[in-house]
């Protein structure tokens, strides 16, 4: 593992050294991170079940020691897999930013970002964990800055604000735990004895802290702002991997603490709410990158459903339930990283060649960018859990775990599990609608803006390769489900009991359901032969179709007649207007000009939960500002009063 870290460090340093040669620095920096990631993918996969450690600079603060256990190996594998794809992608993509900023700095920070995540996963005490946690946050904030636009600074402020609240909660949780165990070393946390109330306080703090990074509801507000603002290779990493690191933290805490059943149920409830609200807000977005960011909220919800089931299983002393829960959660982490990385890279390609984030200005791009369209379609099918692609298998396991949970004897857990299963099913239906919209409005139909359409062309080769690495991942993690499950079981066996989850090419759940992605693929392929056979046998007329404009009831067809993103979800928006509070603007510009019709849905939680706090802070600051009047006498008075206060307090105590 030292070699892996060292390679990223080299990438970090070398790209900085080439500061003067901007173009070359970018290419070399990202190539080094690609090589490092390729090696890392191989290394972490080979050593998945092993525990390794190294320490350096013994004399440094808290003598940094890095330990990778199987769980850490798994997360490192996920990080390096997505890093591989986005590094390869960035080699040519980063040239976009040649005139905006220094590519040397960008490549260097990109390497540092990956390195900080990997070191965070392997750090073995509180001090270094928090250090790398903050490094990860700050470096990603700087990387967002590269897209120097009007909104990016605001996005960074929101991101950092919520990250601070989160980090504060995490630090508090760690320090409370450390004070109970008497040491900052993680190894001392494993045998700590805690009172139930103390354990619950620590858990809630950690859950809020890590949850804010993961983007779970209601701390999700930064995702749709920050992820679209970042350069694509970074947003793929942020959305694909960084938010998963938070899940790593939640799992870690749940393994240290004496878990209770209601924690599992709490995680599940929050997961279900995040899933539903994430997809509902995703549906009404016009900015396709913001849409994908909202989908991260949804998928974090699905992951939390799995993890929550696992935690519940541990607490209720049901080892198979714990195993299937964690299996579902970890599998979905891998899958979501893969397809969300892919979708972000695809979205970045569209942005690269069209320079607009507004879906309603695109259309028909599949003819200009066939490879990107194909990759995006595979990503869309995966994220909507279409069998036999990877998303289906992990959702299948999530369902199986939750069904087993719903079979338990307690009414409270039955209620939570069954309602959450329904939430998951509804999420599935909504996700279909969402990805039908985003895929076909961008890539299908008639181009809405001829200028953009004429300029659009297929992206350079390394960008395509970057995407297709993840396309291969989407297919392989689906069809090779038995191999993935075996490997994840290896990870789970390091902290929990497992069950026999594979039988040849079939994967099984503890309640006895079985599914085989290979068999599904075979049936679908055979079914595809059927219509071809029918056409052949009936000697159908296969003459070349006569191509015309689409039928418009006898009127002359115009590209403005077709369906766009916002009317496609118009019915839903009207149905759920209590949630969106969307404002419709209709501007009549007279007879000869088209009417301008705009409608934008709002994330109401921002105004419900955050705006009051921000307003209160500002008002308090205004009030306090009156005290700062520049009068030295007044300041002396404050000091005197404060001293009196302290004396008074010490007297009372």
């Amino acid at each position, binding site marked *: 593992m030292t070699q892996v870290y060292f390679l990223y460090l080299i990438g970090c340093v070398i790209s900085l050294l080439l500061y003067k040669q901007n173009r070359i620095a970018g290419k070399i920096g990202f190539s080094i991170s690609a090589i490092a990631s390729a090696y890392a993918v191989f290394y972490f996969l080979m050593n998945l079940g092993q525990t390794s450690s190294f320490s350096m600079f013994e004399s440094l603060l808290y003598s940094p020691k890095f330990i990778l256990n199987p769980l850490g190996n798994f997360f490192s594998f996920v990080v390096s897999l997505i890093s591989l794809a986005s590094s390869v992608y960035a080699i040519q993509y980063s040239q976009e930013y040649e005139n905006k900023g220094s590519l040397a700095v960008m490549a260097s920070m990109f390497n540092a970002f990956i390195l900080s995540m990997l070191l965070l996963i392997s750090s073995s005490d509180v001090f270094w964990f928090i250090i790398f946690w903050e490094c990860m946050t700050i470096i990603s904030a700087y990387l967002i800055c590269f897209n120097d636009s009007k909104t990016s600074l605001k996005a960074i402020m929101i991101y950092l604000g919520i990250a601070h609240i989160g980090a504060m909660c995490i630090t508090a949780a760690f320090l409370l735990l450390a004070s109970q165990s008497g040491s900052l070393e993680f190894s001392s946390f494993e045998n700590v004895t805690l009172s139930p109330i103390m354990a619950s306080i620590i858990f809630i703090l950690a859950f809020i802290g890590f949850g804010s990074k993961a983007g779970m509801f209601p701390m999700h507000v930064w995702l749709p702002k920050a992820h679209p603002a970042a350069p694509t290779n970074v947003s793929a990493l942020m959305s694909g991997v960084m938010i998963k690191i938070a899940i790593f933290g939640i799992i870690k805490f749940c393994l240290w603490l004496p878990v209770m059943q209601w924690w599992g149920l709490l995680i599940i409830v929050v997961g279900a709410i995040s899933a539903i609200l994430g997809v509902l807000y995703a549906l009404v977005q016009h900015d396709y990158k913001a849409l994908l960011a909202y989908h991260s909220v949804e998928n974090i919800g699905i992951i939390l459903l799995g993890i929550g089931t696992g935690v519940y299983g541990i607490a209720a002393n049901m080892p198979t339930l714990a195993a299937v829960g964690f299996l579902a959660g970890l599998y979905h982490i891998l899958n979501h990283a893969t397809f969300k990385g892919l979708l972000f890279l695809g979205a970045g390609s569209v942005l690269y060649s069209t320079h607009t984030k507004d879906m309603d200005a695109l259309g028909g791009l599949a003819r200009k960018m066939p490879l990107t369209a194909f990759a995006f379609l595979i990503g869309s099918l995966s994220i909507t859990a279409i069998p036999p692609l990877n998303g289906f298998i992990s959702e299948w396991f999530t369902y199986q775990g939750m069904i087993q949970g719903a079979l338990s004897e307690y009414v409270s857990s039955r209620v939570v599990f069954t309602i959450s299963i329904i939430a998951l099913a509804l999420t599935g239906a*909504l996700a279909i609608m969402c990805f039908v919209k985003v895929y076909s409005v961008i890539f299908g139909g008639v181009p809405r803006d001829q200028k953009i359409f004429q300029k659009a062309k297929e992206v350079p080769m390394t960008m395509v390769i970057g995407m297709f690495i993840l396309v291969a991942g989407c297919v392989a993690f689906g069809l090779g489900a038995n191999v993935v499950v075996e490997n994840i079981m290896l990870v789970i066996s390091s902290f929990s009991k497992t069950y026999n989850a594979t039988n040849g090419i079939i994967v099984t759940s503890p309640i006895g359901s079985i599914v085989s992605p290979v068999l599904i693929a075979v049936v679908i392929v055979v079914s595809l032969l059927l219509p071809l056979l029918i056409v052949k046998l009936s000697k159908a007329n296969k003459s070349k179709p006569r191509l015309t404009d689409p039928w*418009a009831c006898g009127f002359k067809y115009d590209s403005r007649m077709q369906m766009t993103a916002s009317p496609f979800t118009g019915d839903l928006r009207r149905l759920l207007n209590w949630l969106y509070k969307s404002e419709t603007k209709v501007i009549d510009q007279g007879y000869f000009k088209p009417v301008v019709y705009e409608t934008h849905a709002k994330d109401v939680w921002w105004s419900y939960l955050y705006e009051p706090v921000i307003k209160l802070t500002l008002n308090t600051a205004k009030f306090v500002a009156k005290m700062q009047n520049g009068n030295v006498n007044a300041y002396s008075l404050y000091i005197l009063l404060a001293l009196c206060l302290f004396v008074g307090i010490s007297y009372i105590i």
Partner: protein
Amino acid sequence: MSSIFFMIIQVIAIVLVAPLFDGMARKLRAKLQSREGIPDFFQTYRDIYKLMKRARTGPNCAHWVFKTGPYTLFATGAALLAAIPITYSTNTFAGAYSDILVFIYLGALLRFIFGATSIDSGNPFAGVGGGREQIIGIFVEPVMMISLLVVILLASTTNLVEIQHMVRTGQIGYQTPAFAVASISFLWAMYVEAGRNPYDLAEAEQELQEGVLGEYSGSDFSLAHAALILKQFAMIGLFLTIFEPWNFENPFLALIGFIFKAGVFYVAAVFIDNFGPRFKILTSFKNSAIPPLIVSFIALILYVVGV
């Protein structure tokens, strides 16, 4: 392997027979409306055959998702049918494919293709129809899932073959109130998903100009049309498998029995088609979706409290 063979057999058999029942349903509907209607039950075959011979037209903007649409639609319909344990009803190993969740997500694939092709065609009406299809899915999905969830939890498996076996041998069934209530709400969900008349917007000729299928013609249209019939049979099949699975042991007799049962359902649904009004999606459809949702919730509550 034998189960794959049986899957193919049952799909081919249903593909061959389904248009016959469609013809019967059309004739019956015409009679109910005091029309003469089609000359005999075989008209749907002739329609499909005739369309196969016609030349095709298409929008010049569409890409391969639209062009392969009829084939993928048909294949997904066939894959849905293959997931119903009719002829391989004793082979629990086939549950690796014949799983409720596989069935639901294959249905989702069908909806995905429907939506994607409808927008890709560039046709304004198709786009509207595609959007409405999705909304219907969102209305129906919770009802369907809750009803199925009750069954899944009672059987504690998602393996359709095993569930069918359990209902047949009486391990679970109508003696449980939750199961009985769930069957009512599922019947509604199945009927809507089958795309029949009062809820049908895929083929809403009157207001949406052939809706989703707007731009298909010739052999493409005939395949897409056949795919819709297949989907209807698959949905009826799912209901029969779970709630009315009684059938012969012998695979071929079972197939004949199934086709007969499904056909009766298919034809009988004409009565609902005929006397039901067409729904507006935001008002009347929403209102008519709420009672089944309540019924399904009652089923779920019955399960949760352990009745």
